[in-house]
């Protein structure tokens, strides 16, 4: 694994996060140091309560740290003010959520171009072409005028992926993207994410506890009790499951 900063799209150093007040505090993350490689599809795995979601929130600039430092590319975001973080998220980060989280009042097209509108601009011709390409490859061409509630879960998640990729962000965070999908839609969504990474060089960090989902990734980082316990290269679902079972027994 390389540690040079230009190959890392995001990293944390000595990261600690505690919740609650002095007497009843719970450490969600303890001294985590980790880098996400540019252009790679990374899965962050771990059982419930392992701190994987907290780690993702902090790396995406959604939550504050208790100790340690956080970088997105070469920008240190540890102590950025709210507005600066907001603009950073808008321009350099994409999100795919478990429950799709499309804006219910906007149609598919409106949801996809929302990140540009938040920036107060229209997509440029170049970006427009990219969006059209995304829409076609995600099979959303005939759905552009539909509202989220008129779509199936798998379709909604594809819209969310299109939205996340539209601005060509440095890093896309996917939080249990298949958590609410049936197995067929899940496979589709995972294949789309893997393709985005392989063909367009999109960096993706996906939080999941599903070994099958993780098997689509180039790299799998395991968390337990707020610390990184293992860092695997691409593995099969069986190998990942076996490792997780081993963790349970330990």
């Amino acid at each position, binding site marked *: 694994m390389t540690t040079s900063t230009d190959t890392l799209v995001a990293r944390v150093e000595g990261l600690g996060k505690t919740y609650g007040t002095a007497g009843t505090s719970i450490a969600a993350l303890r001294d985590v140091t980790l880098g996400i490689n540019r252009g790679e599809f990374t899965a962050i795995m771990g059982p419930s309560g392992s701190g994987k*979601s907290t780690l993702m*929130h902090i790396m*995406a600039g*959604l*939550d504050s740290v208790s100790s340690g430092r956080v970088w997105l590319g070469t920008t240190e975001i540890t102590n950025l003010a*709210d*507005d600066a973080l*907001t*603009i950073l*998220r*808008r*321009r350099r980060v994409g*999100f795919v*959520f*478990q*429950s799709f*989280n499309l*804006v*219910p*009042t*906007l149609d598919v097209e409106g949801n996809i171009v*929302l*990140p540009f*509108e*938040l*920036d*107060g601009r229209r997509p440029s011709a170049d970006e427009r072409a990219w969006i059209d390409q995304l829409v076609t490859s995600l099979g959303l061409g005939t759905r552009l005028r539909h*509202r*989220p*509630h008129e779509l199936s879960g798998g379709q909604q998640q594809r819209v969310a992926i299109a*939205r996340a990729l539209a601005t060509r962000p440095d890093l896309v965070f996917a*939080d249990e993207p298949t958590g*609410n999908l049936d197995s067929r839609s899940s496979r589709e969504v995972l294949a789309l994410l893997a393709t985005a990474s392989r063909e367009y060089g999109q960096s993706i960090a996906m939080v999941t506890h599903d070994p099958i989902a993780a098997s689509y990734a180039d790299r799998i980082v395991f968390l337990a009790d707020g610390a990184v316990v293992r860092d695997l290269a691409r593995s099969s679902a069986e190998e990942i499951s076996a490792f997780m079972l081993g963790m349970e027994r330990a």
Partner: protein
Amino acid sequence: MRRLDVREHLPSILVATLSAAFGVALLQVTGMLAVLVAADDVTGSSETVQVVLGIIALVFIAIAVYVGAIVTANTFSTIIAGRIRTIALLRLIGSSAAAQRRAVAGEGLRVGVIGAVAGAVVGTLVTVLIVRIGVATSLVPDLRFDYAPPIVALPIAAVVLTTWLASWVGSRRVLRVSPIEATGTAQEESLDESAGHRARNVIAVVLLVVGGGILALAVVVGLVNPVAVLIGVVGGLFSFTGFVLGAHLVMPRVLRLVGRAFGSSAPARLAAENAVRYPERSTRTTIGLVIGVTLITMFAVAVASYQQMIREAQEAQPDVYQGIDQVLLATVAVFSILMGFSALIAAVGMVNNLSLSVVQRTRELGLLRALGFTARQVRRMILVESASLTIAAVLVGLVLGTFYGWVGAQSLLGAISGSPGVVAPTVPAALLVIVVVAAALLTVAASVTPARRATRVAPVAALARD
């Protein structure tokens, strides 16, 4: 029994308190006016004055209580909408829908009682204050006034009953909650069912047509006989009830038009969409204010048209209409204040509904924050939403009020001696200024708390699993 969540119900308690305080104070003050009139040697013990004052007071109280009830019913609907998950969970465990609804109505009863008692106290304090000031400035002789005439029980009971009833009406949605809604992820439900209320729409249209016909008749009859104004009242009741029933067909369209006026930036577009997203909810939010503005406008236009007609008649026959201006002016001032109170209650209701709807959108606001809405953009969105609602309500209220006011004046005065016949409605400029300023204030007031709450929503809220 569910503990009463005072924070959740504070707006409803406030509305009930305002209505009750208004009713109690108004009856106490009119009672005192009657005592004053009776003590006056010149006018003597005029029974008629007392009765007329009482009737006028009761009419205004009825309007205030009616507006309060509509506002409260809407508030309860909004509260219920936010509680669907909890209600579904209780249903899942085995509670019946009817029991759930009774529980909500129980809360409504307690809200009504608390508000009515608080209102009685506040109203009495206001009256005492008025009397003290009056006596101190020697405007009023220090007579023995009765602060608790039996009639004040009327508004108190009316507020308790209407609040209870409003909570019952507002909790209809409880019956349609299925236990399974407790298990689903928080998907926004789409509520484009407005066109679905067929029976209601038909009744609304029938009432509008019949009411409109009666109003037209009133204007025609008014040219020969002032009793036409009574026909006009009937037509007004029919057509306005029709409007309230069918408002969910009208308000969203007006809101869409108003929304377009705010441009096409992301916050403005989202705000406009939010305002029309649930036609039922935005109609609920605005209808109270529509009623308030309609009443004030109707009154102001009626009086202005009335003055206009009298002035024209005065020019024709100066001797018949001497000294009528002062009387008119005083009446206008007093009645405007009394009408304004109903509008105030309606305004409280709007502030309230907007706040609740923001609280219920935590997840969506979190999403916008996560995707890159700055706190300022969120605030602007809420402000535009508030402005759209206010402007739409004010516009509709102005149009309706102008029409009703004109019909009122025309049917009452079309036949006075020296009458110019049918005249165009006179819309007083002062009214427009007051309404615009009040609407601007209301927009800001209605958006302050929700905007503060909305900007406090952490982006992480969007990622929460339920």
